[in-house]
């Protein structure tokens, strides 16, 4: 049973490191899902990627700052 729990935690851990940061990534994708199909502008999906890239920078620098203090 403990082994199954550990496997379950491992599966969740594949996608979630920090729930807050994962929540932000999901929110960005959710916003894209709501907005992008309505815009009909070629290449606007790159805005979604830029938002995720900025989130990566903010999340990693925030974690590094927390670990260093």
């Amino acid at each position, binding site marked *: 049973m403990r082994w199954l729990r550990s496997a379950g935690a491992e599966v969740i851990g*594949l*996608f979630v490191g920090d729930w807050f940061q994962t929540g932000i990534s999901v929110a960005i994708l959710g916003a894209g899902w709501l907005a992008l199909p309505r815009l009909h502008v*070629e290449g606007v*999906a*790159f805005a979604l990627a*830029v938002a*995720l890239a900025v989130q*990566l920078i903010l999340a*990693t*620098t925030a974690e590094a700052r927390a670990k260093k203090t």
Partner: protein
Amino acid sequence: MGAQLLTFGAAFLGSGVESVEALTIVLAVGLTRGWRAPLLGTLSALGLLALLVAIFGQLIVTRVPEVTLKLIIGTLIVLFGLRWLHKAVLRSAGVVAMHDENRAYAQTVESLRANQQKTDWIGFTLALKGVFLEGLEVVFIVIAVGGTSGGMGVAVAGGLLAMLVVAGAGVIIRRPLAQVPENTLKYAVGIILTSVGTFWAAEGMGVSWPLDFVSIVGLAALYLVASRVAVTLIRRPVFA
């Protein structure tokens, strides 16, 4: 052709990195306690993983509409890739220690020596658990990239080939593969998966990319730049 190559490459690299980690555990158990139990554990884990690929791969390919599949799997690949990239950035910046196969091997051997008097179920369970848990990531990568690109066979081939190459190297040198640039490979796979995930998730949202599949190269460049910016920011003296 480009899509097939990317599918094969992502499955091969992802599987290769995880196989190196699994091999370290199996070698530590085998060289410390004998080979029978860890090999049985490894085979059992591989059987379970193959079952997962067969069941979920088949379900995904036959039951889920393509647009839904791209949205859901694309989102999961983005989260999975960002997680690898996040760790890679922190490792590159020196905030988190680099993964070291020699150290992982020494720790496993040490824990096994402390349990020498017990039955060999320990060797079996440790190998089973190690291979299964490391293999779960491979299963996800294979199903995700294979299912969404329509190249499940190519993805399975990439995953299996990497596993065979790593196992072969392990049989020959009988030491952890510490020379494999695991951290760099994980960094590269993190960028590939995040780019591919973003591409498919957006397609699942009904968006069409300029230049179609070639856009993935642009996405990869964007995530590479972002990750290097993060590493540079973290390394600044003012940050310490």
